[in-house]
C-alpha cells in the first residue's frame, strides 16, 4: 500500500518538500533516548541536534496565527496531573491521526505535507453567526490557558499533556448557537494530496466528531491551539483541535475546518466505522470493555516508570466532575 503512494507523482512532489527524513529521525532518536533515561541530560548535552525542529522560528503565519512549533504559552491553571507531563517527544512522536496513516509513526512522518496557513473555520447549522472565521477571530490569544490533562486513548494507553487553549464555551458563545442547537459537530481538514492516509478507506473521510452542547460547554472542554508551550505541531492537530479529557482520544477532532451546530445527534467517524465498538459518548470507563480488549488498565507512554509502566484506568479518566452530565444514563448502554 505504501508503495502505491510513493509512485503517485503528486505525492512525490509534496514528499520532496518535507523535512529530510534522516534529520527528523535523528532528532526523534536523540530525544527518545533522553526520554528513556528519564532525564534531560542528553538533551542538554546535544542542543544543536534538537534545535532545528524544536525551537520556535517562524513567529506567525499568513493566517495570522502562530506557526506550528512557535512559542505559545498560556496562563497556568490549577488543572494538573500528579507526576507531571509526558516527555514532549512521545507526544509528537506517538500519534493517531489516520489521515496520515494508521501507524503511530505515520503522522510525525507525513503531517509536514499539510497546509495550515491560511486557515479558515466554517461555522454553520443552527447558529445566528454562520460564516468563515480566521483562527485569530475564534481564539482570543490573550486569554490562553495552560491545562495539564491526562489523555487516554481507546487503545489502552495514556499520556499527560500540557495543553494550551481556551475553554470551548468561550468560543461557542461567540458563534451564537440557536436554542435549537443540541449538538455540535467538528470536521477535520481533508486534502487527499496532503494526507496520504485518506486515499485508503480506513475511515469515512472527512473525520467528524461531535458532542452534546452541555458536554461542549463543560469547563473542562477545550479548543487547543498549543501544547508544551508551543503552537500545536501538525501531527497533533495543528492549528486547532478539541480536547475532552474524560473521553477516549478519538472523540477529539484534529485540524478543525468546520463547526456545525445541530438539532440532532451527529454521525461520528469511529461510530460510522464500527458502531458496536465505538459509541457516541465514549467516556473513559474501566468497567466497560472494548468488545475486543479490556479498558481496566492502561500503558503509560513515555512514563518515568520505564517501558513497562501501567496504571489502573479511572472512571471518566479521573475527571469525576463530569458525572452529573450523565446522571440517570446507563453508561453501559451509552458507551
Amino acid at each position, binding site marked *: *500500500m505504501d508503495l502505491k503512494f510513493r509512485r503517485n507523482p503528486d505525492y512525490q512532489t509534496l514528499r520532496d518538500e518535507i523535512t529530510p527524513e534522516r534529520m527528523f529521525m535523528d532528532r526523534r532518536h536523540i530525544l527518545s*533516548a533522553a526520554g528513556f533515561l528519564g532525564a534531560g541530560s542528553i538533551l542538554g548535552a546535544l542542543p544543536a541536534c534538537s534545535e532545528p525542529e524544536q525551537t520556535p522560528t517562524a513567529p506567525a503565519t499568513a493566517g495570522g496565527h502562530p506557526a506550528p512549533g512557535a512559542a505559545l504559552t498560556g496562563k497556568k491553571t490549577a488543572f494538573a496531573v500528579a507526576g507531571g507531563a509526558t516527555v514532549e517527544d512521545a507526544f509528537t512522536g506517538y500519534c493517531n491521526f489516520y489521515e496520515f496513516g494508521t501507524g503511530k509513526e505515520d503522522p510525525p512522518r507525513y503531517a509536514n505535507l499539510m497546509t495550515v496557513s491560511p486557515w479558515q473555520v466554517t461555522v454553520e447549522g443552527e447558529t445566528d453567526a454562520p460564516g468563515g472565521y480566521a483562527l485569530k477571530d475564534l481564539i482570543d490569544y490573550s486569554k490562553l490557558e495552560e491545562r495539564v490533562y491526562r489523555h487516554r486513548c481507546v487503545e489502552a494507553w495514556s499520556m499527560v499533556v500540557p495543553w494550551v487553549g481556551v475553554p470551548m464555551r468561550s468560543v461557542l458563545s461567540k458563534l451564537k448557537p440557536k436554542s435549537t442547537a443540541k449538538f455540535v459537530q467538528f470536521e477535520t481538514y481533508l486534502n487527499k494530496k496532503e494526507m496520504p492516509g485518506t486515499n485508503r478507506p480506513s475511515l469515512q473521510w472527512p473525520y467528524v466528531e461531535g458532542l452534546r452542547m452541555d458536554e461542549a460547554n463543560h469547563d473542562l472542554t477545550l479548543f487547543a491551539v498549543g501544547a508544551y508551550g508551543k503552537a500545536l505541531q501538525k501531527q497533533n492537530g495543528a492549528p486547532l483541535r478539541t480536547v475532552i479529557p474524560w473521553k477516549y482520544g478519538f472523540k477529539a477532532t484534529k485540524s478543525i475546518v468546520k463547526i456545525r451546530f445541530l438539532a440532532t445527534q451527529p454521525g461520528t467517524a469511529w461510530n460510522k466505522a464500527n458502531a458496536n465498538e465505538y459509541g457516541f459518548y465514549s467516556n473513559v470507563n474501566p468497567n466497560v470493555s472494548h468488545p*475486543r480488549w*479490556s479498558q481496566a488498565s492502561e*500503558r503509560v*507512554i513515555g512514563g518515568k516508570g520505564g517501558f513497562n509502566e501501567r496504571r489502573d484506568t479511572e472512571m471518566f479518566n479521573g475527571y469525576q466532575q463530569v458525572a452529573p452530565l450523565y446522571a440517570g444514563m446507563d453508561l453501559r448502554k451509552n458507551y
Partner: protein
Amino acid sequence: MAHSPLLRAFGKHWLKPLTLVALIAPLAWLACQWALMLAGLPNDMGWNVGQWTHRYLGDTAIRVLLVTLAISPIRDITGWAPIVIIRRRVGLAAFFYTTLHLLAYFWLDRNWSLPGLIQDVTLRTYIMLGMATLTLMIPLAITSNNSSIKKLGRKTWDRLHGLTYPVAILAVAHNLLMVKIIEGDPTNHAVILGVLLLWRVGRWVIGKFKPAQVAA
C-alpha cells in the same frame, strides 16, 4: 537447472545452515533493539516498547508460518525437491516465535498475572484464537523430528501435520481481529494465506481429475 551440480551442492551443504541463520536473524535484531533501549541509545521500537515487542514477535511468527506453507508450492513450481528439507525447521521456528510472542505479551501486557491471562483468554475472542493456535502447534513441534516420523509412520505423521492448515487460519484470524481497522499487515497475511491454500485446492482438484481424463 534443478539438477545443476552447484545447486545440488548448495542444497546439500548450505541450505540448512543458511535457513537457520535467516530464522534466527529476526530474534537477533530484536535483541539488538532491546540492548540499545536498555543502554539508553536510539532504537526503532518507538514509544510503546511492550506492545511493539509482542506484536513484532507475533508478526514474525505468522510470516515464518506462511513461509512454511510456501515451501511445497515453491517445490512444485521450481521442481527443486531438496527445498523441503528445511520445512521442519521453518515450522519449528514458527512455533518458537509464537511461544516468544505469548511470553512477551504475558510479561509486558499482563505482567505475569495468571488471572489476567485467563481473563483475557476467556473474554477476548482474538486471544482465545491465539491460544488455540499455539496449543495446536505443540504436537507438531514435539513430532518435528526424524524419530517421530519413524514412530508414527509417514502417513499418520503427514495427517497430524495437516494441522498446520487450521493453525495458519487461526493465526491469521487472531491477527485480523486484533486491529481496529482491517487493513495493512493483517490483510496482507490473510491474502498470502488465501493464495497458499488455493494453490493446494487447485493441486488437489487437478490431481483428482487428471487420472479420470486419462481413463477416458
